Each structure stands twice: as C-alpha cells, then as structure tokens.
C-alpha cells in the first residue's frame, strides 16, 4: 500500500533480472548449448556450425516475430510457410524471366516489389479479420493453399534456378567475411548476412513494441479488444498492421531463402508456419493473446535451432528429432501454463513445512 514515484523505477539489478520474463528461455538455451558443447566440443562451437544455427534462427526468428505480433492481438497467421514459397518464386521470376512482356528487372526492385506484395497479402488478411470478422485461422488457411498453388502454377512446378555467380545470392549465402572481404574472419566473419538482417528487424520491432504508442496499443488490443476500442484505440488499424508486418516478414524470409537455395521453388517452407508458431510459444507468447515479446521469439527460434543442430551433430536419426522437438514444445507450454496459473503451488507445498 505504499505510494511510489517514478524514482522507484530504479530497482536493483537482481530485481530487474527477476522480472526479466525471458530468463527461463535464456537459461534453457544456455544449458542446451553447454550440453551439446560437452558432447561434441570438436564440432558444435566451430564457426561453420554456429553459422548453420544462426541461419536457422534467421529464418524462424523472422517468421516468429511476425507470428508474435499477430498472436499478441489474439490472431494467428498460417500462411507464412506458403508465402515463403510464393515470394521466393515471384522474386526469382522477376529477376530471371520477367513477367509476361515485361523484361527481367534488377535485384533491388524485384526484392522491393516482393516485400510490398508480402505486406499487401498481410493487409488482405487483416482486412478480412477486422472488417468482415473472418476468423484469422480461416483466412490465413486460405492463403496457405492459394499462395503455394500460385507458386506452383507460376513455375509449372519447376524451380527458377539462379546461376552460381548471381549477385542476388549474396543475401542468403553471404556472411560478414564475404561482405567485408575478410580472409577467414573467425566467428565474426562467419555471421551470416541473414542473421544481421534479423537483428536489424528485431530491433525495429522491439522499438515499436516498447517505445511507441502503437506498441502499447498492440498489447492493449490483445489483452482486451473491447476495452482498447472504448479507450479510443483504432483497433482495426492496429490489427491490420500486425498482419501486414507478418506478411512483410514472410516475404523477406522468402527472398532470403530463395537466395540461400539459389532458386525460387514452390516446395520450400512446408510447415514453417507451425515451426514459427512453436518458436513464438516456446519464447513465452500466449496463444490467448496479449503477451509475447520479440526477444522471446528469437530465443524460441534459437532453442529450436540449437536443438535441431545439436541432434544432427549427435547423429540422431531425423525421425527421433521431430519427436524430441515436439516434446520440447509441449514441455515449454505446460511449464509456462503452470507457472502463470500458479500451478506450481504444489511444489511449494512439497518443500515447505506444514502449518
């Protein structure tokens, strides 16, 4: 019952650490890393292997950030996996073949157009969800089918393959060593460009969520749509923004993936939306809406990346890998649910003396 002024904000480092919500995920990540390092110190921390993990995080972290935004508002975006294929195909198509009578265009314009297309698809989703009250699950499931179908139709099923020297390929295949012309370059040089892009995007979204009115409104809309509306929040615009960002980030990931694979192919990205959602959830995003952070999304993607890579390093069969990843997801969600709901009270009872 004490009154606090703004000065009470400055609390001890430990207290702040305790409030740091992603601490559990971070601890789990560090423990996982240590375990794999202990099992295979010769491979796991090699720059080349870390680069593999970072590429994984770049892909799923980006998608997970989009999902986090949509999920905070109480929605879901099932289209992102198919959008990867669609945007990868159209960007390759624009660079290599041109559309109809329009000749091929340069790398930068093609990428920009693709990103705009991604954002427009997101706006399409958001408009259906807000104006027509179509459940997000359904409208994005529609795009899930439409986008992959279009991708296959455009290419007639054949991938659009780039020549090995194509400048576009630097985006997905390059690392800092190549960018700066370093010889070797160690760990720093091994950092993929796509990972740097992820950090850049994450910073922007973090700032939006934490330092702008829009960010506050996103959480308010997710926490209680009606209360937000009655507080004068333009709830439709806020939600459309989140879907648009998810579409934009799917397109960006699609472009990077096309570059990494050296082709635009309609078969890429299958079930990636589910991995992205899993990463968001492992990172503490509540599917009920209202909760979720950028850092959580990246840490969630990192846990999945480290797990997946570590299991490859340990030579586990790919069949068992999926089983383990699925179990990690379940454990993470159960843990989080119990923690929030005070479901761990039984532990307190076990460890405290009876009254």
């Amino acid at each position, binding site marked *: 019952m004490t009154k606090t002024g703004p000065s009470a904000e400055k609390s001890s480092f430990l207290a702040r650490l305790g409030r740091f919500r992603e601490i559990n995920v971070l601890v789990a990540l560090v423990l996982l890393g240590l375990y794999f390092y202990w099992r295979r110190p010769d491979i796991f921390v090699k720059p080349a292997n870390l680069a593999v993990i970072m590429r994984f995080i770049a892909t799923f972290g980006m998608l997970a950030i989009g999902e986090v935004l949509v999920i905070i508002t109480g929605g879901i975006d099932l289209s992102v996996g198919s959008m990867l294929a669609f945007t990868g195909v159209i960007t390759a198509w624009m660079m290599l073949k041109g559309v109809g009578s329009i000749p091929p265009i340069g790398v930068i314009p093609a990428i920009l157009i693709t990103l705009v297309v991604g954002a427009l698809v997101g706006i399409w989703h958001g408009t259906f969800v807000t104006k027509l009250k179509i459940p997000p699950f359904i409208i994005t499931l529609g795009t899930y089918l439409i986008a992959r179908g279009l991708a296959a139709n455009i290419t007639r099923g054949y991938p659009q393959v780039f020549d090995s020297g194509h400048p576009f390929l630097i985006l997905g295949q390059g690392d800092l060593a190549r960018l700066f012309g370093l010889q070797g370059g160690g760990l720093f040089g091994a950092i993929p460009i796509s990972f740097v892009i992820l950090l850049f995007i994450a910073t922007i979204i973090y700032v939006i969520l934490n330092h702008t009115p829009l960010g506050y409104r996103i959480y*308010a809309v997710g926490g209680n749509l009606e*209360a937000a*509306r009655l507080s004068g929040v333009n709830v439709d615009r806020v939600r459309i923004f989140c879907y648009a960002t998810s579409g934009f980030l799917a397109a960006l990931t699609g472009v990077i993936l096309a570059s990494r694979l050296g082709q635009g192919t309609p078969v890429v990205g299958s079930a990636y939306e589910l991995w992205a959602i899993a990463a968001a959830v492992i990172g503490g995003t509540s599917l009920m809406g209202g909760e979720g952070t950028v850092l959580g999304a990246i840490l969630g993607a990192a846990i999945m990346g480290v797990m997946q890579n570590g299991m490859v390093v340990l030579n586990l069969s790919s069949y068992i890998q999926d089983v383990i990843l699925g179990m990690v997801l379940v454990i993470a969600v159960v843990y989080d649910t119990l923690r929030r709901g005070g479901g761990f009270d039984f532990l307190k009872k076990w460890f405290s003396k009876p009254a």
Partner: protein
Amino acid sequence: MSEQNLILRVEGVSKAFPGVQALSNVDLELAPGEVLALVGENGAGKSTLMKILSGAYRKDIGRIFVDGREVEITGPRHAQQLGIAIIYQEFNLAPNLSAAANIFMAREPRRSGLGRLFVDRRRMEQEAQKLLDRIGARISASTLVRNLSVAERQMVEIAKALAVDARIIIMDEPTSALGEDEVEKLFEVIRTLKQQGIGVIFITHRLEEVFRVADRVVVLRDGARVGGMPIQEATPEKVIQLMVGREVEDLFISRRAEIGPPLLEVRGLTRRGVVENVSFNLRRGEILGFAGLVGAGRTETVRMIFGADPRDAGEILIEGKPVSIGSPRDALAAGIGFVPEDRSNHGLVLRLSVLENIVLPSLDRHTRLRFWLDRMGLLKTAQEFVNKLNIRVAQLQQKAMFLSGGNQQKTVVAKWLALRPRILIMDEPTRGIDVGAKAEIHALMSQLAREGVGIIMVSSELPEILGMSDRILVMSEGRVAAILNREEATQELIMAYASGEKVEDQEISMVSNPATP
C-alpha cells in the same frame, strides 16, 4: 439457537496467501431457514471464506461443522455432497442447453433397462420444472438458457443447487446484475427457500438489501469478523461503521457546483428496437442522473453517444456545434470520456499494468516526434492520477487484475481524467465497490462538476441517483419517460416513471427541463 440446530458452524478459520492474511480466526454460524447477510468492503475476506466453504480453497486452520459433525472440505465435489452450493456472480451455465439440461447437468435421469444409455428427457424436464416451480420461478424448463434473462438464469442456478439437495446456498453478490424489479423476485425466491428450511448466505454490497431480506448480518473487515447481530438490532449506520471501521457522516457529500451553459445536446437519438428518440441536454458542471429499470436502454443510449455502438438516427451537439461521432475515437477527440458498466471486460485491460491502463487513451499526448513514447511523461501522468484518486497500488507496474474492485474503478476513471474531458459518462460508477471507494468516487464526481465537467451518471441505485444528480432523466422501454429536477424527484416518483406506471406528457417534460429553451 442451540448449537445442535445449526446446519453450519465455522470456528476460528484462517487462511493466508503469499503476503496477505486473507482470513484470521473467523467464526460463522447458520441455522436452517436462516438468511445470513455477509457484508464487508472489497478485500475483507468474504469471497475467501465462501471459497473455503465451497471447497475451492482449503483453510489453513480452524474447524468447520456441518449438522454438528466436523468436516474437512476437500474440494467442490465434497462440498456438494455435504449439501453446500455456491452461486457465483458469473453463472456456470451452458447457454445452448435447456434450463432442464443445465439443472441436471452430468446427472441426467436415464431411461430404464437397455435405455440406460439414453437420457430420459421427459422425466428430466418434469423434474426440472418441479424444482423451478418450487422456488416460484416462472420459467419453462425446456427454454434454452441463452433465451433467459440474467435474473432467470439465476433461478436456474438456484434450481440446480436444489437438484443436488443443497441445504446451504451461498450467493455471491446475487443482485449486482439485477434490476430493481428482478431483485424483488429474487428475494421472493430466497424467502421460499427459507420456508423450506434451507440456509442462505447472502453476500452483498447493497446495505438496503440486507435489511430487506436478511435475518442476521455478519460484518468482515480485513479478514476478521468485526461484528454480527440479528437484523432487528442493526442499523445501516452501525453496519457501515463496522465495515469501514470509521464513522461515515454522509454517503453523499453535499455539493453545489455552478451550473453553466449547455455543453452537450442530444437530439432524437434512436436505435430501432432499443432506444427511441432520446433527447436531452447536459450543462457545464451538471450531474445528470440516468435512472430506469435494467433493459430500459440507458446503457445503450450512453454507448451510442460515445460512439461505441452504431445509431440509426440522432444528432449530437457540443457547445452548440454538431459533432460527428462514429467511434469512441471521435468521442475522445470531442472531449467525451466513458466509464463503462463492465469495468473488467470493457474498462480495463486486466493483463496490463495500472500505468498502461491509465495512459492508454492519452498515449498520443506523451510522444516526442509523434512516435517515440516519453516514458517519464507517462509515469508522471499515471502517478499524478494515482495520487489524485488515491488508487491503492503497490507500484504502477502492478497488473490491473490484482486490484480490488474499487481501485479498478478508480483506475478506469483515472484514464479518462488524464485526457481532461469536458464530458464524462459514467455507467454504474459505483456498482460492486466498497463503501469507502464509493464515497471517494462520489467526492471526485462532485469535484469534477465544480471544475465544470458535465457528467452523465447511469445508476440503478436510487439513493445514488437522488443523492448525486442535479437532474434526473428517467428511461422506460427505450424512451425518455421524464426529466426531473432534484427537488421534485423522489424514489417513488422515479420508480413510477421507470416502470411505465406514470407517463409524463411532453409539455411537462419541457417545463421540468430548465435547460431547454
């Protein structure tokens, strides 16, 4: 009454939560056919005690006797077996099932023989009807619950309790969502239960109800029992004094604000089938009370003014100029604030902090370069209103869900005050909050009126309407039945207009509305 006759006896029960002693050493006794009113401010421990009795919580220490036998209530099912039923404010009914199916949920009567796999629907409806008739509820057991009114759903809940042979029925704020006429029906049901030897524990904030229905009153404060007495020995002043632990001079602080020129004018506001042709005006510094029965269209009217719901027709003028209000955002821009009836679903984002809730409508006023939030500014604003409204919170980052009802309501008010509105609409501003917080909100309203804010107050509590309003607009069946001056208004007159018994002709209405030119 002798101890053997008690159906329930609670002795020295305590319960602690991390950081809070919710109950300490509480005694309670209940005889068959007795109606016990349990009163106390929010956070006094009423709900905790009820949850212990209904098996939702386990007590730390103390003893509980049912029919003189000591029991250890292990869970909700066990409480049910002991004959204890609780009816929460939020009902646990399936809206798409019939009243009968709800009453017999999970205990549906079966057919005989091989038919035991199937529900005997006819017998279920007959028996449900018997239970509903027994409490005097005029509901057909085959009606779907979603087609029942709030009051009728409550009857279904009571019948459901009787279906499992409950002999102790606990009602948590049963009247908070009921209109005046429905409250009386509920009380008839309670009197019927009483005649049948059932003990009723009745939790309420409305003292007037305690004196209408209870045989005995027990007061809790800060987790302890501070008093209990037969109703004949109790007076409202005595009970309030026990509840708040101090003398409350007058529930309504007298105020005389300077009433200024017309601020808001509403003409012909209509939504077909709900609100018909509502016209009135509001002046600077005036508190205009909206009285009427539940369902008379008061909430619908104010929500339309605020742009929360669409309207079919009607004009809104502020300071003589027509304004176009199509959404709450437009209303905000026009200087209107709205404290909704349902604070936890419409007023607050419970998962967000007090800070975030207070600044939500005024975020744009705390930015640099139009997009970067000025955190210190936000903190300062929130702190200013937390202090001004005396919102009791450990820190601004505390989530709104952990506040008591009164402090939640003050937080809703604070978020509008931070916008410095010219017009404040308050729908049931003090429903379900304790006496202390209620007085504070009333004082605040008076102060705002003195500062020139025009206030529309929708309230179902006639003493509040009479105590706070400068003028009273009475609605009945979607129309304005009368606009009364404070001096001419009485409880009886308002009820007469509200129930449609008395119909005022247009001319008198104009005369009694001094602001109409």
